[in-house]
C-alpha cells in the first residue's frame, strides 16, 4: 500500500502534536513516528535577522515535495508522510517547516524523515530573504545542503 502523503504550503502555523496524533490513529501498525521541525534563527552568518520572508513557486513546490515523499516511500516502508512548509513573513523562533513520517520501526522513520528534509532543501522551489538591520538580503544556497542530498544517491 502506498503511504498516505500530505503536503501543504501555507502562511498559517502548524501543530506538530496534531500531525503525530493523526499518524498514530491512522493504523495500529504504526510503531515509529519521526519528525523534523525547522525554525527561524535570530542570527545567520553573523547578522541579526529581524524577519525572514519566504517565497515559493506555487504548484511546483507542492508537486516537488510530493515527488520527494513518493521517492521516500519507495525506499522505506512508510504508512504516512506529512510535510507542512510555511511562506510569507516569519519572525525568529517561529516554525518554518515540519516533516513527519510514520513506519513500523524507527530505522525507516528516521531515514525517511532525513531524506525528505535533505531533498526538500535542495529541490523544492522556496527562497528565503532575510531582513536585517543592514537591509534585505537573499539567503545563498549552501554547498553543505547539496552534499547532504547527494549522500542519498551514493548510498544506493
Amino acid at each position, binding site marked *: 500500500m502506498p503511504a498516505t502523503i500530505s503536503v501543504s504550503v501555507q502562511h498559517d502555523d502548524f501543530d506538530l502534536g496534531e500531525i503525530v496524533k493523526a499518524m498514530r490513529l491512522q493504523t495500529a501498525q504504526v510503531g515509529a513516528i519521526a519528525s523534523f521541525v*525547522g525554525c527561524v534563527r535570530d542570527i545567520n552568518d553573523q547578522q541579526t535577522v529581524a524577519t525572514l520572508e*519566504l*517565497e*515559493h*513557486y506555487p*504548484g*511546483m513546490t507542492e*508537486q*516537488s515535495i510530493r515527488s520527494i515523499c513518493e521517492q521516500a516511500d519507495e525506499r522505506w516502508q512508510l504508512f504516512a508522510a506529512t510535510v507542512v*512548509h510555511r511562506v510569507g513573513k516569519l519572525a525568529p523562533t517561529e516554525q*518554518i*517547516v515540519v516533516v513527519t513520517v510514520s513506519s513500523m520501526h524507527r530505522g525507516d522513520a528516521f531515514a525517511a524523515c532525513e531524506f525528505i*528534509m535533505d531533498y*526538500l*532543501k*535542495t*529541490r*523544492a*522551489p*522556496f*527562497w*528565503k*530573504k532575510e531582513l536585517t538591520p543592514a537591509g534585505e538580503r*537573499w*539567503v*545563498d*544556497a549552501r554547498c553543505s*545542503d547539496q552534499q547532504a542530498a547527494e549522500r542519498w544517491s551514493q548510498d544506493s
Partner: protein
Amino acid sequence: MIKILFFARIREQLGVDCLEWPVDAALSLAQLRQQLVEQRGGNWRAVLMADNILIALNQTVVAGQRLEHTTVNAGDEVAFFPPVTGG
C-alpha cells in the same frame, strides 16, 4: 504564447515577475533564453546566463545539455529562478 515566470533574486534583478512571450517556430529552452537576452538587453544577459540559474519547463527543472534538446510549445510555462533555499 508561453508564460515565463521569474522568482526571488532574479525577479528583483529583472524587475519583472511574469511575461507572456510569443513562440512562432519550434524553440529549445536554450534558444528561448538567448531570445530573451537579445530582445530585452540591459542586465538580462548577466542575469539569465548566470552559472547557477535554474530553468523549469512546466514545473520540472531542465538542466545542462537538455536545455538544447527540450522544445518549448505554445501554452507551456517556463520559469527562471536561483538555487533554492527552503526548509
